[in-house]
């Protein structure tokens, strides 16, 4: 369960405040949630706020669940560390023992299919490679919620399928909050939907309903 209380979030731009959320109070029941919204509506900002690395200007977001770091393209890495060093760092961060760390490194190396690049600095990676590394790394931990921002679209078709299969298996034991522009993926992974539009959040019990509302908004926008 995630409780948002009077949450207001805005960014200052040259044209004044641009509101992402305007005094939103809402309780989200546990479940796999797909987040929908037009470009720039604030989907990623919302994810970052759930991951506690971005903060509302007013109000609070509270939950007793554990959240993964927001999995996006390339976030959460330091460029001059190698892939292996980054993985080791995260293991240390979560207080894993030496043996566990070794297992995680082996697993991520195998899953991400980076080969020799695994021991190269992250700055030599393409964004798809970073996404693969980050996704593989997150799978090695057990969170209540995985926060995923478009990562499923990394890599070639074969890797995409593999990632999707693994994730489907993973979410049997945990929940997922997913941002995606692929409606098919959303329908496959999520049961409920959250639409973010004009500074307001709209929650739908059914992802299909959320998608059709989203399509309505897109049509009006044209």
């Amino acid at each position, binding site marked *: 369960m995630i409780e948002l209380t009077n949450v207001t979030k805005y960014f200052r731009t040259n044209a004044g405040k641009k509101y992402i959320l305007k005094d939103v109070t809402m309780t989200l029941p546990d479940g796999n949630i797909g987040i929908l919204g037009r470009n720039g509506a604030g989907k990623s900002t919302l994810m970052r706020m759930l991951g506690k*690395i971005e903060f509302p200007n007013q109000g609070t977001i509270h939950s007793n669940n554990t959240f993964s770091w927001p999995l996006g393209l390339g976030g959460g890495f330091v460029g001059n*560390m190698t892939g292996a060093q980054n993985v080791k760092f*995260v293991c240390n961060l979560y207080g894993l023992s030496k043996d566990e760390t070794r297992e995680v490194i082996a697993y991520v190396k195998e899953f991400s299919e980076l080969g020799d690049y695994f021991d190269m600095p992250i700055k030599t990676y393409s964004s798809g490679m970073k996404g693969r590394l980050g996704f593989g790394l997150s799978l090695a931990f057990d969170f209540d919620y995985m926060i995923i921002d478009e990562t499923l679209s990394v890599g070639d078709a074969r890797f995409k399928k593999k990632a999707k299969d693994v994730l489907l298996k993973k979410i049997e034991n945990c929940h997922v909050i997913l941002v995606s522009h692929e409606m098919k993926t959303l329908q496959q992974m999520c049961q409920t939907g959250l639409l973010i539009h004009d500074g307001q959040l709209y929650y739908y019990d059914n992802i299909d309903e959320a998608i059709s509302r989203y399509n309505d908004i897109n049509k009006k926008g044209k």
Partner: protein
Amino acid sequence: MVARKPLHIFTAVIKALFLRELDMRISVGKSGLFWTFFEPFLQIFIFVAIRVAIMNHTGKSMATHYNLAVFMASGFIAFNLFKHILNASKGAFQANRGLFAYKQVKPIDTIFSRVLVEMFLSSIIIVIFLAVGFITEQDNLLPENPLMLFAGYIWLVLFSLGVGLVVAVGNTFFVSVGKFIGIISFALLIFSAVFFPLISLPSAAQDALLYNPLVHFMEMIHGAYIVGLDDRFVDYRYILMWTVIPLFIGLWLYRRLEKRIISQ
């Protein structure tokens, strides 16, 4: 995932960052690590040579009653620690930006871990120096007052941490703070009584230099180390002020700006 206690998380984060920083130092280039340990030797060699040359030139039999190499080493190791902590904190937020994606990692943790790395490297340098001094049979190698020396060292670290924190936060929002540090760093070396005892200066110069808090730290450390030198110039209240006020300002600024630093 099991919920952990805040202290447990904090220590895990510091440990992870500490290992990361060390890892970087070692893997980024062997020359960097070599320089870390060689730099103080070079500094001390040069400054001992200069002092000896000046003494020969003036012709006065100013043979010091203390061991010059030991004097230089105790001064430079302490001064370098200050300088390195300041430089390390300056870039700490910037260099670790990517890691703030993990909510456990708070920006201030990167400063703490960098300070620990500098202390760790500094202790290795101290051990190397003592070993070299022992092998070359230097006289008066061991400190006169080890406990006081240790206290002075820790105090210097706290002072550096306070100043470093202010610089780190300032540097995030005003770039010029970092540039300023680079410029005054060299001037500080000359005006901080690192390679000469304050007592050897005329009293007008002594009074002027005593506004510099580092002079007090150097005098405290030299006084505790060298037999025949004492801490008569050290104003403990003055350096306490210089420790508490920057720490307070730094922590206050940090608390106010932490969220902006994370999501910048």
